[in-house]
């Protein structure tokens, strides 16, 4: 029976590697061997993957703007999720007593983690885009109405929506890190006369900092792959300009942007793929998987470094 469960582990590992190999094989086959849909030649095709103009024939386009768009989204999302997530985690770990309010917060976090991503999209559309965005337009951009500036899906609202989606992830990661900090540190700090906030921010937080980064990186990984909310709040099939500019504030918050996961979704359902065109889709999928995989590995190693403090030996 132990063997049975051990073989389950093996199976899962096999499936994971199998999927990965499938993607690599398809992408590699297209890059190296086949001759559709763009020009022949490995370097040309590699260039096409990133920089091709939208093709009228099949509707595919280069991924570079999508990568930039995804990175911009992640940057802005981190701006919002980091303070909120860290603050809530600090509250739960350092300040909270075992009252109904704390229980309520914990239940809320678990529930937020379980809410389907599309519901976040709906909320983002109704509250951020039409609600807040409409107000911002009425207050600051009234001269441009009825053409909406912020009352329409865009980078800012997408980042806020994803910040909500990833809030539980960050909170859980940071809480774990804070709990791993031994109490001696806190007690020593108080004994030396520090106030509560000084203890938290100057003594405990630096020790838990790797967990903060781990949580943020996990959030980033999820933001790169989560497509459902973006269907509603901001990603588009094609935008000729990047959401960055040389004018302050350097990020165009009201623009719509291209996103890696959305490009894959679009390529799968809306692109007219020739028989050999699956390789292109495999390329997009592979880039996405590699990106998320690398981010996950980084987060995990940070987390492992933090948790090494807490181990209990297994008698088996």
């Amino acid at each position, binding site marked *: 029976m132990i063997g049975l469960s051990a073989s389950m582990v093996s199976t899962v590992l096999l499936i994971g590697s199998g999927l990965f190999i499938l993607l690599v094989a398809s992408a590699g086959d297209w890059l190296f061997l086949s001759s559709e849909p763009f020009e022949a030649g490995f370097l040309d095709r590699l260039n096409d993957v990133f920089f091709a103009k939208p093709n*009228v024939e099949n509707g595919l386009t280069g991924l570079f703007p999508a990568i930039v768009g995804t990175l911009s989204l992640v940057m802005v999302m981190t701006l919002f999720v980091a303070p909120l997530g860290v603050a809530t985690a600090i509250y739960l770990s350092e300040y909270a007593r075992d009252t109904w309010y704390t229980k309520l917060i914990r239940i809320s976090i678990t529930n937020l983690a379980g809410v389907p991503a599309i519901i976040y999209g709906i909320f983002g559309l109704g509250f951020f885009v039409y609600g807040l965005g409409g107000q911002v337009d009425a207050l*600051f951009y009234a001269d441009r109405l*009825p*053409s909406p500036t912020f009352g329409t899906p865009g980078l800012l609202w997408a980042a806020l929506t994803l910040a909500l989606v990833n809030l539980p992830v960050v909170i859980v990661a940071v809480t774990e890190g804070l709990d791993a900090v031994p109490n001696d540190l806190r007690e020593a700090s108080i004994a030396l006369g520090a106030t509560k906030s000084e203890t938290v921010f100057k003594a405990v937080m630096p020790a838990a900092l790797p967990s903060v980064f781990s949580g943020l990186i996990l959030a980033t990984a999820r933001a790169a792959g989560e497509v459902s909310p973006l269907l509603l709040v901001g990603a*588009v*099939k094609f935008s000729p300009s990047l959401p960055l500019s040389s004018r302050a*504030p350097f990020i165009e918050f009201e623009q*719509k942007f291209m996103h890696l996961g959305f490009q894959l979704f679009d390529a799968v*359902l*809306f692109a007219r793929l020739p028989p050999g065109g699956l390789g292109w889709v495999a390329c997009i999928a592979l880039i996405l998987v590699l990106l998320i995989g690398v981010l996950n590995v980084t987060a995990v190693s940070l987390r492992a470094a933090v948790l090494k403090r807490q181990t209990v030996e297994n008698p088996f």
Partner: protein
Amino acid sequence: MTRLFRRFFVVSMLFSASFLWAQSDDESDRSLIIVGSDTLAKLVTAWAEQFYVLNPTILIEVQAVGSAATPPALLLGTATIGTMSRRMNADERDAFTVRKQRPPIEISLAVDAVVLIVHQQNPLESVSMAEVGQIFGMPGTCGNSVRPVFWRDLREDSVLADRKLQVFGRTATSGTYQYFRRAALCDGDPGIFVNEMPGGAGIVNTVARVPGGIGYTATSYTSNDVKILGIERPDGRVLYPEDPEYPLKRTLYLYVMTDVRSERPSIECEFLAYVAGEKGRDLLRSAGFSIPQVADSQSALGVADACG
């Protein structure tokens, strides 16, 4: 730690301040948002891309989510140009009359055909319109009573005899769906057994890979992987999309709704001038559409000329 937070606080304050300051910048006023039909998505995207090359100061966004998005977008002002693969109906037009006191400018942009496609190895060559209603509609559509479930129900000698028909169609918000419903299903309901796919290209991709598949899509999406069926007339003649009398031909429309302020209409006019020009028409043809023969007031060229 506090130093880090202090710096972070200062940076974020500066960020927000510059964000308010950015609103005084008038340059970004030149933007064009085009919403609408998925059928026209590739073409409009290609146009937008070329147009941007010629006019880099104009910011263009293309959102192809479906024809149904166009009237609300034009009404709210979310977009100034919208494409539809069907004509705006009376209710949608009414909303413009009430809200904006004038209807949007309607342009017949391109002519497209909706074709029926099957797998390359399917021996079927053509179907009648009655059979189309039987295959895609709920039982009772267009007066037909029985739905063909297996391929042998449709054609007795079919190689695929014992396989079930795998029917593919578009989602309800698509203009192609609504056109098909009106033209081929007698305004009746499509069957709940129809696999709904969000994009026309998706139908082609899937039917190309499913031996028992049949679906409908716009000609511009078809490729050599699928077989296009002819439509049988009661008199025995089989019509193909190239024939002028092909029953499932439709005009694709472009609607322009500009603001009364003076500077705004010029961007739309420039875009229309490009669309009506040589390069624009070439792209249109290479995307698989044809140019409609209409009066100047309904053509892109005529409207572009008129707005000067």
